[in-house]
């Protein structure tokens, strides 16, 4: 959309540095444009863990933007991703979250597709007893499912609608890809389970939240008090060269009163856990970081918090809300004790997470704050106006990075 049209729509990107106009969170036409330019554009979206569909014919349905897709292990043990939309009259035919299939049949008229998405049969294609049927020009080969490009990277399956999206490694950038390989090092993963929540806030607010290294040690009493994430700890915020992806890194400290923790209102020196298993970290990776939160624009969050591992997927549902899908996992060779540790630490995360429930709540507060205030701005100048990698957490640099990229691809 060009500048003139933007202005007609009453939308102006603020001139002031490090500001986000609040209309990006609620305008339905901006949202519709995001679907096209971002979710169906030149970006990779998280769709599954390979471990979720271990055998040929195993499939999973999920969403990219508002489009339903099927992720399936095909006959030659490869991964395919198809749009879940019948070539005939467009039915979203596959209704199960997970399943095993030899082929896909749309129930309406039983057009049958192979696992590879090819249309294999149209009932009565040649009519019945010489009457009816599809025209001569109709070719099964031209009417398969819309097949997306797929890339599997050390256990995660990524998909894109676009032919232009660069190779995933290049997409992520070298710096981010190195971080990616820390948890996703090629070892087989094991799914521990799912959590799903609908958050009544614009999808970008969740990306901001995870890129926001300034908030965890302030909002989350459990983090600040028990030193899971606090400003006096070793930490870093890194971005890829485009600014769209990022990682927050931190290393667990203690529940100690010092110059930093003393200045945090939410720090509670007296808070004591009856059972400390919730926050006990067991060293398991090469580097000592206890937090590594990667954001892969536009819709994936890759969580390492203590020993709790999960992917979090954003599924936008209109400008004002998104579904948030958590897939908790471990390594296939985890022993019972490590599995139990991950399961207990999961208490901190998800919709009932002692920590994460707070993130869903505060971004709802922000969405509400944007209501009736489309002409106001959010301020993202903590740490200055630069977009850069930092070795500290008191910064909103990663948010600035995302919006610099966003502004560009959206044409604002």
């Amino acid at each position, binding site marked *: 959309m060009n500048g003139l049209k933007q202005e007609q729509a009453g939308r102006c990107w603020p001139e002031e540095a490090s500001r986000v106009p609040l209309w990006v969170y609620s305008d339905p036409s901006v949202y519709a444009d995001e679907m096209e330019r971002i979710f169906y554009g030149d970006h990779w979206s998280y769709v599954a863990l390979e471990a979720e569909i271990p055998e040929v014919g195993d499939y999973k349905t999920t969403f990219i933007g508002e489009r339903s897709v099927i992720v399936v292990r095909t006959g030659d043990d490869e991964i395919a991703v198809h749009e879940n939309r019948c070539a005939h009259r467009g039915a979203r035919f596959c209704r199960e979250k997970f399943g095993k299939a030899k082929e896909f049949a749309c129930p309406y008229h039983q057009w049958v597709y192979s696992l590879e998405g090819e249309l294999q049969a149209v009932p009565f294609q040649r009519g019945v007893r010489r009457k009816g049927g599809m025209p001569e020009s109709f070719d099964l080969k031209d009417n398969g499912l819309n097949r997306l490009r797929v890339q599997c990277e050390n256990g995660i399956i990524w998909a894109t609608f676009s032919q232009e999206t660069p190779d995933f490694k290049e997409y992520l950038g070298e710096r981010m890809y190195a971080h990616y390989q820390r948890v996703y090092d090629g070892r087989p993963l094991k799914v521990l389970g799912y959590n799903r929540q609908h958050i009544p806030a614009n999808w970008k607010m969740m990306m901001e939240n995870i890129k926001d290294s300034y908030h965890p040690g302030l909002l989350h009493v459990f983090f600040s008090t028990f030193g899971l994430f606090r400003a006096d700890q070793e930490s870093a915020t890194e971005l890829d060269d485009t600014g769209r992806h990022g990682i927050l890194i931190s290393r667990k400290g203690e529940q100690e009163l010092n110059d930093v923790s003393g200045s945090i209102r939410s720090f509670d020196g007296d808070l004591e*856990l*009856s059972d400390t298993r919730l926050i006990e970290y067991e060293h398991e990776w090469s580097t000592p970081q206890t937090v590594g939160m990667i954001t892969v624009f536009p819709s994936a969050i890759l969580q390492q918090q203590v020993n709790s591992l999960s992917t979090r997927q954003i599924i936008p549902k209109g400008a004002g809300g998104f*579904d948030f899908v958590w897939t908790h996992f471990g390594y296939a060779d985890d022993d019972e004790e490590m599995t139990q540790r991950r399961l207990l630490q999961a208490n901190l995360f998800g919709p009932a997470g002692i920590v994460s429930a707070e993130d869903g709540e*505060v971004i709802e507060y922000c969405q509400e704050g944007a209501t009736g205030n489309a002409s106001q701005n959010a301020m993202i100048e903590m740490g200055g106006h630069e977009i850069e990698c930092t070795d500290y957490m008191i910064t909103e640099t990663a948010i600035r990075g995302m919006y610099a990229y966003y502004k560009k691809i959206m044409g604002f």
Partner: protein
Amino acid sequence: MMTETDPVSEAILRFYHRYDAALDDRLLDEWPNFFADDGLYRITTRENWDGGYPLSTVLCEGVGMMRDRAVAIQTSMTYTPRAYRRFQSGTLVLDRSGIEVETRSNFLVLETLPDRQSQVAYCGVSYDRIRLDGPDMRFSKRVCVLDTEMISNSLIYPI
């Protein structure tokens, strides 16, 4: 026809009703007192339960963890104030072995947020074990399996 079940005593129902009343009143300090010291409390979803996934949405092994969560809810967590209202139906005694009964019940939780109409927040089935020895009944296990896999933002209070 589904396996025969044992009678459900008024005392068991009363135990559930006191549990619900305490939580409806947000007496979270009372919550762990309904459990044996080594009691287990879990909330999970039908998806995890049927799929054999061990993940819980809430997991407390022993009353210590329940106390920690009760403290967090009451003193540290950030969330919009709300009321939960609990309903129970269909309680069956599935098994009765020594000092414990094993039950299943349907639960329904309605949530009321400020300036909003009350809405269905959660429903599902709980599989419980209740210890009958001692002066009071106590849960030795309570597992709430949510039909409601898609949580409306956050699940704050226990069920």
